[in-house]
């Protein structure tokens, strides 16, 4: 197993800069008319409603850190909240939403559904979590901030969570006007805790409580590489719900039984990531205990034949895909942002890895901001020109442009590590508290 020594630890100044640069995405990618935020910086990118949720969550961070005037943040938030309030909720193929939920991808200009995308339950939850964050932060008695809070209440209260539950109570993943509910169901641990908490905490259309248990019986508690962990392969799963919900020291029935909690579980998931990278079973370039980060991200794909020849033919290039450990899929692509977004769980390990990775592969930053991914195995022998969707230089293939989800989770998790701002805000949100309690969470700050 490969182990790197010694490695540097990132300093506070650099951390601050990375957080601020990540926040800059949301300033750059917002539509000034609708307030919607683009999924990526790539040309013709639509809006992702989840990215809007992250935007609403990071505006308060920017205000608190003095990066954005409060009035500006409120105005941006109001703009997009008003848009959702007035949006077409008919469920038509070109509407914006239905039953209080929203289609995953929307036109940046009109807010109409694009790409025949699904009405997404989890992405709606991320949007609403962001809205509730804004409502918890902007608490002044000004007309604008009062309106903001009223809009958030309206949007949250009109979501019909129960409609989205199947006969066992499990919340479905999506719905389309063309075919109704999708076949996919949440199976195994994933990012859905925040979805269930919001669904269970609703004062108007709360989800039936049976769904949370029906979901958690699909969990797998595994001993992997000597770590007892609630298994999920991609790193983002161990981060997303934690961005909003302070899961430190509180336990649901499953975690009480395992004498653990979700925060500790994310720490162990990091250890499994490191152990996998040390083993590096596919012998990809770059992997070691200070270079890891397999998650859902962009990546080189099979449409880039000029890249494929560099890879072992047994390893497919996966494009945008959820990569994970220890069973894969893994095509040698890592995400620097996913490492740094793990900061609250294991600060020293994460800072050392993040710093080392940036030192080795500085091309993973573009304009000071993390690209979605890099792949050292596909490093060119010599620097080459950019390709359409990626470039190869500085010892790796690098994804081009930026993705909103990556930037949002990074800003939030760095902030939670530095000040706990988002966690503090959401600990005061009565809907989150009610939802956690209905899901069976006890102890810690919930006591």
């Amino acid at each position: 197993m490969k182990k790197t020594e010694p490695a540097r630890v990132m300093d506070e100044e650099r951390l601050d800069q990375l957080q601020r640069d990540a926040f800059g995405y949301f300033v750059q990618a917002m539509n000034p008319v609708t307030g919607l935020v683009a999924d990526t910086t790539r040309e013709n990118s639509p809006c992702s409603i989840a990215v809007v949720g992250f935007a609403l969550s990071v505006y308060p961070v920017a205000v608190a850190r003095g990066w954005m005037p409060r009035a500006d943040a409120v105005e941006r938030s109001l703009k997009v909240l008003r848009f959702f309030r007035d949006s077409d909720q008919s469920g038509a193929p070109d509407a914006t939403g239905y039953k209080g939920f929203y289609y995953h991808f929307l036109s940046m200009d009109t807010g109409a559904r694009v790409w025949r995308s699904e009405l997404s339950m989890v992405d709606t939850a991320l949007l609403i979590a962001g809205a509730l964050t804004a409502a918890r932060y902007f608490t002044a008695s000004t007309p604008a901030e009062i309106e903001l809070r009223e809009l958030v209440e309206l949007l949250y209260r009109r979501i019909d969570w129960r409609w989205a539950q199947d006969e066992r109570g499990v919340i479905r993943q999506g719905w389309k006007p063309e075919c109704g509910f999708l076949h996919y169901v949440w199976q195994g641990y994933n990012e859905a805790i925040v979805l269930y908490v919001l669904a269970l905490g609703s004062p108007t259309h709360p989800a039936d409580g049976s769904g949370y248990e029906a979901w958690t019986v699909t969990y797998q508690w595994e001993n992997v590489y000597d770590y007892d962990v609630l298994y999920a392969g991609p790193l983002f799963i161990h981060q997303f719900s934690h961005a909003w919900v302070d899961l430190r020291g509180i336990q649901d029935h499953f975690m009480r039984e395992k004498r653990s909690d979700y925060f500790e579980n994310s720490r162990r998931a990091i250890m499994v990531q490191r152990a996998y990278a040390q083993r590096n079973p596919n012998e990809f370039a770059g992997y070691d205990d200070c270079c890891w980060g397999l998650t859902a991200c962009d990546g080189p794909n099979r449409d880039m034949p000029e890249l494929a020849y560099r890879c072992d033919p047994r390893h497919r290039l996966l494009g945008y895909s959820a990569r994970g450990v220890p069973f894969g899929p893994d095509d040698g692509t890592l995400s620097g942002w996913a490492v740094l977004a793990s900061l609250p769980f294991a600060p020293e390990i994460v800072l050392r890895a993040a710093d080392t990775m940036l030192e080795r592969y500085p091309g993973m930053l573009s304009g000071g901001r993390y690209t979605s991914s890099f792949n050292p195995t596909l490093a060119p022998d010599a620097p080459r020109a950019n390709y359409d969707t990626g470039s190869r230089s500085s010892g790796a293939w690098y994804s081009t442009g930026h993705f909103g989800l990556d930037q949002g989770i990074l800003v939030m998790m760095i902030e939670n590590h530095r000040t706990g701002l988002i966690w503090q805000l959401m600990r005061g949100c009565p809907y989150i508290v009610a939802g956690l309690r209905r899901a069976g969470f006890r102890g810690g700050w919930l006591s």
Partner: protein
Amino acid sequence: MNTNGAPRDAFERERLDNVRPPHWRNPQPARRYGLVIIGSGTAGQVAAYEAAALGARVALIEHGLFGGNCLNVGCVPSKSIIRTSRLYAEMRNAKQYGVQVPRDIRVDFAAVMRRMRGIRARISRDESVRRLVAANVDVFFGDARFSGTDTVTVDGTELRFRRALIATGARPDTPSIPGLAEAGYLTNETVFDLTEAPRRLLVIGGGPLGCEMAQAFCRLGVATIIAQERPLFLPREERDAAQILAESFARDGMEVRLNARAVGVRVEHEQKLVDLVTDGDTSTVAVDAILTGTGRVPNVDELNLEAAGVSYDNTIGVHVDDFLQTGNRRIYAAGDACLADKFNHTADASARVAVGNALLSGRQRVSALVIPWCTYTDPEIAHVGLYVRQALERRIPVKTFTIPMHDVDRAITDDDEMGFVKIHVRERTDRILGATIVARHAGEMINEITLAMVSGIGLETIARTMHSYGTPRPRGSNSQLTPSAARV
């Protein structure tokens, strides 16, 4: 493409001579049989030998070929061509073993099928009519129908029985897709008759049969698409297992269509056009052949079971209790005709249970059987016992000990690192509840776990047991497997 039966070569003549001897004449029936068995597949033959060995007067009725699915259109032919297809895949990947890849790898499909027929003929010797007759069993060919609560008629001849066993097996369940019948399609009952490979093949169904055959044909050079209506293959198996299989298929070059439902078939310009719907979006694939592998239905509807007072339905099959006894206390059932687990070895085991209960007034429960199973893809996917979900639904706390195959030396030396061993134990004990293995030889590896479960051997004992080098255990220390070590 020839689908009008396998070529009548020497192999086929030998097999048919064994499983349906020409000019066969049914014997004069005995006044009354101790056991009449309907069906000569695995369950039927095992029951016949067992009952004859116990001294019972036994009659066995078969309407088609001796040996049932397994020998003729199931395990034997499928595993034969799977082996060859694996060899072709290894030839193409020879470079990874430091071997010069042959320049011109051309699949001789006719030779593949000829080998399969040879194997089938050879194994048919062990399942021949003559062998069973030599064991003192009266063999009748013809359609069996119950004519009363203790009588069954075969082509006009009535057989009386003290006990009867329904072991009629199952047949392919054909999906009702508009245009499919008109366009023509293959099932496991016809696919092994092919003598030429189709250029392009659509496999409908992502269960064990569909997955095995899709991968085999893909590796035999057929441009293969597999369409599975569910979001994952093998819906019964663990998510990670199904995902690894999907990845393996993609590496083989197979086109994987998950969450895709076939809704219509038409023929244009001598090709079959199949409409697939995924989340409301329709696409069309053009192929030369379609293989359906969407499950099996029990052969129970032609037996006039009403006359015998035996209840049944066309989904589950014959209704039996935990002792495999039907509503008519004289009549039992075994194998695919009555069990949800439609495996050859389950048919074998259930037949033994049924014979013991029927002839010896035994009280052995079929629910007590520990049943392993394996899907013979590459990697193989094997399972025994409970899944984690089943355990948690029963409120049994579970912990899973996971060994990725990339932590197993032998898997590394063999370049077979795709997969894992997951052993589920009751938490804070070493009692094994179940296991899933995804590995090149998972079907063999699962047997150690099955033996442990049947014998009440815990995981700690397995971990303490000396294994020859290269068996799946973590590098470093086998104490990693022990729950007590994990507690420390």
